[in-house]
């Protein structure tokens, strides 16, 4: 007589909050440059567009990684948990529409006070064992949405379950994420492990509440003998004035550095290259004040 049905649960909300929010972890660099103003199309001096274009392309890659990995969690926000246990929520198994013949399963476990572990698994229908494809941990330090966490995407495991191969040789084997959303800036680091490189490519993001930010990447073990390790740091303030520093950290050109600044009107105000014959225009003092990159704090906190 009093039968009840539905997904009305305060605790479900708590568990779902343990999952990382993809929009909170994405770089805003592409948004900043998407106006198409100034820098690339109206350079003050020289043709520095290649620096920015590289940064933007890497920012897009960064966001794609976040989207592709965390997009797999969206399904959990559309269906109610299948099983509610003390300190645990389980979804599935459910038929994986994107991969016919396979089942998905997800689980979030409250392992301690404000500490959560989660994983998304898959199996071929008819088999018993689920393989973890995506998994992570989260510690709520300030609110349920603000804390520190890690997660990963195991591409090798995914190919093993689905019986697929890489579309491209340079596709990653595994991607590890670390993030801290309990301070300003939000800090995200991604290590992308590709077979061609012995050291994962590291992407770094500082994302400030006032829209300022720092985005960069470091790649090591590159095949070019002149630049086997490079880094790019792209910084901007709340008014969108910014700076790019491109550095060769190892290789024949180790120590080479290129730098470019632009103002709030998106006009290049300073350009410099420290190699012989490199660009040197404008005054560095005209560069806007931008933040230095802050490293990801230790996890668990």
């Amino acid at each position, binding site marked *: 007589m*009093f039968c009840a049905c*539905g*997904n009305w649960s*305060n605790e479900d*909300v708590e568990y779902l909050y343990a999952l990382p929010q993809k929009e909170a972890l994405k770089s805003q660099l592409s948004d900043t440059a998407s106006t198409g103003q100034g820098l690339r199309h109206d350079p003050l001096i020289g043709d520095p567009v290649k620096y920015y274009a590289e940064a933007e392309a890497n920012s897009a890659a960064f966001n794609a990684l976040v989207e592709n990995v965390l997009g797999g969690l969206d399904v959990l926000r559309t*269906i109610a948990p299948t099983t509610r246990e003390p300190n645990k929520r389980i979804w599935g198994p459910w038929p994986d529409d994107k991969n016919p013949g396979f089942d998905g399963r997800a689980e979030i476990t409250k392992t301690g006070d404000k500490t959560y572990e989660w994983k998304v698994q898959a199996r071929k229908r008819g088999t018993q064992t689920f393989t973890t494809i995506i998994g992570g941990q989260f510690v709520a330090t300030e609110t349920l949405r603000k804390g520190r966490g890690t997660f990963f995407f195991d591409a090798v495991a995914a190919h093993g379950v689905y019986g697929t191969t890489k579309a491209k040789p340079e596709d990653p084997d595994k991607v590890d994420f670390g993030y801290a959303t309990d301070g300003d800036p939000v800090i995200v680091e991604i290590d992308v492990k590709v077979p061609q490189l012995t050291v994962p490519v590291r992407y770094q993001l500082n994302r400030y509440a006032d829209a300022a930010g720092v985005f960069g990447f470091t790649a090591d073990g590159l095949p070019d003998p002149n630049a086997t390790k490079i880094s790019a740091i792209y910084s901007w303030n709340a008014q969108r004035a910014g700076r790019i520093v491109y550095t060769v950290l190892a290789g024949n050109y180790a120590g080479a550095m290129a730098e470019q600044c632009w103002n709030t009107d998106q006009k290049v105000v300073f350009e410099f290259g420290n190699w012989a014959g490199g660009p040197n225009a404008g005054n560095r003092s005209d560069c806007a004040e931008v933040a230095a990159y802050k490293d990801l704090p230790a996890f668990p906190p």
Partner: protein
Amino acid sequence: MRALAVASLLIASLASAEGPTRRFALIVGNDTGGDGTRDLMYARDDARKLHDILTRLGGVKPADAFLLLNDSSENLLKSLAEVEKRAADARARGDRTALFFYYSGHARDGALRLGSTQLPMESLKARLAQAPADIRVAVFDACKSGAITRTKGMRRAPAFEVESDAQRAAKGLVILTSSASDEDSQESDSIGGSYFSHHLASGLLGDADKSGDGRVSLGEAYAYAYERTVADTADTASGPQHPTFSFDLAGNGDLVLTDVIERREGLLIPASAPAGAWFLVDMRGFVVAEIAKAENAQRLVALAPGKYWVKRRLAGHLKIGQISVAAGEITVISPEDMKSADFSDDPVKGAYQTLTYTKHWGVGINGGYNLVFDKPLEAGGYFPSAPMFGLDVMFHNAFGRGWSFGIDGAFGFTSGQLLVGGLESLPYKYSALALGLSGICEWPEGWWVPFVGVRLALNIMNREFPGSGLPNQGYAIFVPGLVLGMKIRFSTRWSFVARTRLNYLLYTIDSTRSLGSVEFAGLFNYEFGL
């Protein structure tokens, strides 16, 4: 022939030479008759009316008057046994005794139908015939009740031949029925009762006092009720209804049923007032008495203290006045006190009364607030309190007078902050749809109508968390509850209703919790006929 009838009907007088008479009354009214019968609308009211008259004017002490409403045959017999015991005790003390039995309700296939129970009329008659009272008067207002007077041992006589000047106290049984053995006994919405009981009551209040001695005898009352019942039912769809009168008596002397002058209380219609029908209606809309005023004859009607409408229906319009009868006083109505009114403006008869006591619809729009017995969502509760707006449809008197059935729907919404995990405040938007079925018992007499009932509702609730990326949440559950309220009429069709619902809300998702809510609402209500 007339002399023969007179001789056989003369019954002991209350004030006979043999001394005072201890009177007992068992009054039974039952609107329901079980399978195969349709609920009556006014049987209980008729019983109440007779109970009031007999205890006020008929010499029956309230302690000696038993009133059974919608009760069973078993309890009727228990009450009859108690009356018999008291009568036997009184008789043993040397009192002369009289027993008045009245039944208004269903009768079918030779049995009184009291709800789902039955009582054979023959056995009841035999019981009354043996009852330890010197004189027993039984009145049956039921369909085909005349069958009880066709049996052996009783003699039938037309009431209009009753004579009241005999002096020798009689002993025995007298039976009055509202209709012949092959006739239905009819009720009327316009008079708010059965024709027979209505006219019997009017007669007992004084209009049947043909002799003008201030007392209404059994013979006068029956003759009056007979004449008016036949006249009123002559043109009805069911055809004329002929009351019957039978007796099994020894002795003579007519029985005085009511004394309308002893209390010196009521309404006096002066001799100079126009002749014709005068309706006396109480403030609830009940026709208390219908007086056939004769030319140049005053008429005293022993109304109980209170306020009444007095109404006359003329050819093209109404004459309406309001009077107040005080305890121990006689109010004289003056024709000048009555104002003319159109039939459509009749405040005391017609639409109001029909809507009140017959099956009809009511539609209301409501607004209210549902207060949930749970901690606030800002502190981690589950369901918020919220304003509700909706529509009610009520089928009044669906299961008998005062027993109504309703359906309702309401929508509510609110917004706020939900505390999650003790850390996070999350904005939410809440909405709720409630669809309910109600069974209501209401007391529709008068302008203030209290009601209580039960309700079962389907509550469908939804909440969303804008901008959070979280899924909407829903919950649907059947919610039982109690209903309590008061309808305040401010016209014949329009009313305002103040209503409270107490609901039980079971929550089962995160854990099992018994929650509840109380809903306060006000409705503007419109009622209309079928």
